[in-house]
Structure formats: C-alpha cells, structure tokens
C-alpha cells in the first residue's frame, strides 16, 4: 500500500511539469485578472502584449514612463504596479530600499536563455530581483558624408569638444549620460564621486557648450538624425540601430575611451497585487518568441541570447547594423552604480547650469 502511494506521488510529480506549462502553478488560477505593467515609452511590440492577454485570458494595463527618476517617484506612491522595467542603477536603489520582491524562479524557469552580457550584473548578482529585458551602450551616431569614419573613431567623445562641428550636434539631455561622456573622455570612472574629477567633468561639459553649441534634445533626436538634420548625436545603441536602418549615411561609433552599458530589466515591486501573473509575464517576455518580436519592433538589443545571435548574425535583420549588438567584455565600459543621494541632485544641478549658460 505504502509503495502504491509513493508510486502515485512520484507519478504525479513526474506529470506536474507537463500539466502546468508555467512550472509551479496552474495558469488557470490567474485567468480573468489584471496585470499592471509600467515600461519605457516605445519599448514593446504591442502585439506581444495582446498575445499574452489572449493566451492566459488576462488583461494587461500597460503604461509608460520616461525616466528612471520619474519611475522612482511613482514607486513611492501607493499605486501598485506588478511589473516595472527600471535600469541597472535604479534597480540597485530599489533593492536597497526594499521596494522589490524576489523573482519566483519556479515560474520564471527560463533564465538560462539570458545572454552572457546581461546576466548576473553587479546590481543584482544572481538575478534574484530582476530579469533583463533590453540592453544597450551609449555612442555617437554620425553622418559619414560629413565626418569620415577614421576622424570620428580617433576622437571618440572628444568630438563633443570639436569646434569644427559647432552647431551641427545633438546632445542628449540627461545629466547622468552627459557626465559619463565627460568622465570617460577624461579617463575617469563613470561612477566617480571624486570632487576634483566631477569639477573637471563639469568644465569639460561647459567647454562643450561653448565650442560645440549643441542642441539639447531627448527622443526627438531619433527622427531628426534619421532625417540627417545634423552631423552627430549622442544616442543609445537601440535608437542608433533604428537611425542606421532609416538613413544609410549614418554610422555608429562606440568610443574607445569606454562607455556606459545599460541594462533595463523587469522587476516586481514589493507591493505588487498580482505577483504570480507578474512572474508569468516576465517568463513570457523573456522567451524566444516575444523577445524576438520586441527586438525587431524597437531595435534594442535583446536580453535573450538566441534572439541576439540570430538577429545580429548572418542573414539576421540587424546583420549589417553597426549599432544593434552592444559591445561587451570591454574593460573600460561600465554599468552605472547608484550614486549617493547628494550626487543624485548635484549632477542635474550642474548639468542644468551647463545648458543654461
């Protein structure tokens, strides 16, 4: 009798993974519920969201935000989001503030699909709280008919100090990224809090403002560069991939002085109302099908290793696109760490002064 029971239990256990497609629990449990997703603007193929809704018979309330800092403020309020997609340093801050709950790895059982370049980053070493979504480097999109490739590669970030390009450059209006290029150009870490280094970076940026006279922009840079309105622009590689696809005169330079590697990852806030469905969603988004559709739609590098290889490899959609595949394993490239509170407000303060001068 005992044996029989044991055998039955064993049989049940063996059947379990087959019965529930999402290891650990029955998706029927969450049918009819709503999932609140908060993601960056223009960062998804909405078709994927609709397919997810259909497959699990749920409703996705999909909203977008524009900056990590704004997201941070939103997460201080009582509103409960189930899945949000902050960047690396903001994830670090959210973990420290105990605002996140661990990913349920019984449900999200496909973490082995993550690309080497994005998994186990310092901000979350075992991907306990976060599952990468897209990743990117920062670099310079430039018009090869105006600036020859060798000239741009030789200058790197110092192109932003070159008087010869005055009035022909877009600068991305983001204090953290602005200081990053200044610090990299000067040979410092992008995470420095050294007073002298910050001051030197500030002077570098002021000099850029005076000599290059750039236009300070945000997302409008994408269309403007696709139309070729200026010679060069600081952009994220995902946006660069789109620009290069639209305008064949454009090329992408990731300076040899080093750059920022940014990872945007899916996390579940501690106060999420529907954590089970949230885990299910994360699993779905990481899978090959959804990852591929999203990467094809927005041009950012997938966190899914197979998609990344397929799209950037021979015959892939982004085979000849210099911007799609982020540089990885380069010594001088850094992921942002969360700066101490006083620096968080000091950088935007200094940056505003640069732009307003």
């Amino acid at each position, binding site marked *: 009798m005992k044996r029989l029971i044991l055998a039955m239990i064993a049989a049940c256990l063996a059947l379990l993974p087959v019965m529930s497609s999402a290891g650990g629990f029955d998706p029927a449990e969450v049918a009819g519920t709503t999932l609140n997703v908060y993601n960056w603007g223009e960062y998804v193929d909405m078709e994927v969201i609709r397919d997810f809704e259909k497959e699990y018979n749920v409703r996705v309330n999909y909203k977008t935000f524009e*900056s990590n800092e704004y997201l941070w403020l939103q997460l201080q309020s009582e509103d409960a989001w189930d899945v949000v997609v902050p960047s690396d340093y903001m994830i670090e801050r959210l973990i420290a503030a105990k605002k996140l709950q661990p990913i349920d790895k019984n449900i999200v059982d496909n973490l082995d699909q993550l690309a080497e370049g994005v998994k186990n980053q310092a901000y979350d070493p075992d991907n306990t709280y976060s599952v990468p979504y897209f990743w990117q480097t920062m670099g310079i999109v430039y018009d090869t008919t105006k600036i020859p490739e060798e000239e741009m590669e030789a200058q790197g970030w110092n192109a932003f100090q070159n008087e010869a390009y005055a009035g022909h450059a877009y600068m991305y209006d983001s204090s953290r990224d602005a200081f990053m290029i200044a610090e990299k150009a000067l040979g410092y870490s992008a995470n420095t809090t050294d007073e002298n280094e910050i001051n030197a970076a500030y002077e570098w940026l002021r000099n850029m403002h005076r000599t290059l006279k750039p*236009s300070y922009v945000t997302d409008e840079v994408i269309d403007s560069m696709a139309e070729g309105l200026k010679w060069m622009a600081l952009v994220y590689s995902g946006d660069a991939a789109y620009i290069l696809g639209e305008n064949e005169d454009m090329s992408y330079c990731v300076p040899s002085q080093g750059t920022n590697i940014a990872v945007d990852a899916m996390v579940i806030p501690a106060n999420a109302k529907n954590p089970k469905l949230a885990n299910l969603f994360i699993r779905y988004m990481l899978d090959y099908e959804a990852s591929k559709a999203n990467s094809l739609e927005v041009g950012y590098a997938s966190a899914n290793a197979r998609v990344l290889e397929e799209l950037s490899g021979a015959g892939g959609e982004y085979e000849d696109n210099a911007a799609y595949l982020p540089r990885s394993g380069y010594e001088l490239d850094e992921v942002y760490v969360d700066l101490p509170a006083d620096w968080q407000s000091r950088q935007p303060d200094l940056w505003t002064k640069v732009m307003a001068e």
Partner: protein
Amino acid sequence: MKSFVRMSYPYLLWIALFIVAPMIMILLYAVTRSGSGTITFSFTLDNFGRFLSDTTFLKVLWTSLRIALLTTVFCILIGYPAALFIANLPEKRQTLMVLLLTLPMWINMLLKTYAWRGILMNFDLESEIKVFIGMVYDFLPYMILQIHTAIAKLDRNLIVASYDLGANRWKTFLKVTLPLSVPGIISGITLVFLPAVSSFVIPKLLGGGNYVLIGNLIETYFLVAGDWNFGSAISLIMALIIIASMYLTKRLDRSAVEE
C-alpha cells in the same frame, strides 16, 4: 439668494483642496531643507538665496520673462488690427470670424506645436524666431478675442459724435476707440503673458533644445534632481512674479478706466 451662496461651497472646497493646499505645501517646501531620509523641518531661506545669487538662474528667469514679454507685444501688435477689422464687419460675419478664430483652440496645443516644428524645419531661421512664431500663434486668439469683445461693446454713438465734432478717422481712433478698448488689451495681456512666462513646451520643441526656461528648471529640480525644496522655491519666485504682474495690470486697468 442664500441658496446661491451655498452653491459655491463645492467650488470653495475645490479651491482649498487643489489650489490653496498645494500652494501651502510649496511654501513649506521652499522654506525648509530636507534632512537625510525623512524631511526634518528646519527653517531656511537658502533656497531663495541660491536662486538669486546665481547668475545662471537669473539669466534663465530673464530669458523666460523676455520671451513672454515679446510674445505679448507681438500679440498686441498683430491682434489689435485683427480685432478692429473683425469688429467692423457686419454682425453675422463677425460671429463666423470669431468661430474661425477659436477653431485652432479646439486642437491640442502639443499637436499644433509639432505641426509647426514640421513646417519650420524647412526654413533656416534663428531658433528664437521659431519660438516666437509658435508662441504668438498659440496665444494670439486669446488676445484678439479679448480686444474684439472690448471694441464690439463700444457705443457706436461715441464714434459718430467724434466724427460729428470734426475729428478725422485717425484722431477718432486715437481719442475714442483706443482708450475705450484698453480694458480688453489688459485682459488680453493677462491671458497671454501669464501662461507665456511659464510655458516651456513650445520653446522646448521649437527652440531646438537651445533654451532652458524657468518651467524647465522647475521640472528638472522636481523630477530629475529630486530636490523638491529648491524646486518649490523656484515655483514660488515664479508665482510671486505672476502675482506682481497681475497686480500691475490691475492698476493699469483702473487708471485706464478712471481716465
């Protein structure tokens, strides 16, 4: 009569909750400094000192005021003749013209500004001129409507009397029409200047990223720097300037009426 007074209670509650309470919070933030972690209430005027002692911030303030001022002047220069023209049309045509004038106001301001961006992209103009075109375009209807109302209300007999007493058209305009339409110009100024001072979307989109205005500053300190205290101080300085200019226009209005 009493029941009518009571009907205003919801509105008063609305004002208290959504205008007065936030203003008090802004004031509190502006005169305190944030401690580590939680807000510790220690009084300070540093936030104001920081703004007023920094030439960069003052420059931003000046740019905002200058753009708003020039926008208002251009709105009057273009709006007045237009309003005069409309007011002199037959009644039915006037209604049509006013309708046409308000038509663009039904469209979202952001959409209109993006449209202008597309149009102006093809012209090699100074970015400041592009900003003015966008600002004047957006605020002009408010100015024209106010002036038109003032002129349309004007007693025609006064103009007839002026001609009767030997004044020519030009003199009649200067001595009768213009002074009597001043209240319209003044309410037009209020409706154009005040929103223009704090507007930052149009300069941002049409200025090609060459402008930092006071609205951008406030946005940066609240949303990016997370420095609510300083952001509140800037907002308060802004509010004080707006209150001062409202007071000044009111004074102008009164002296115009007394004349």
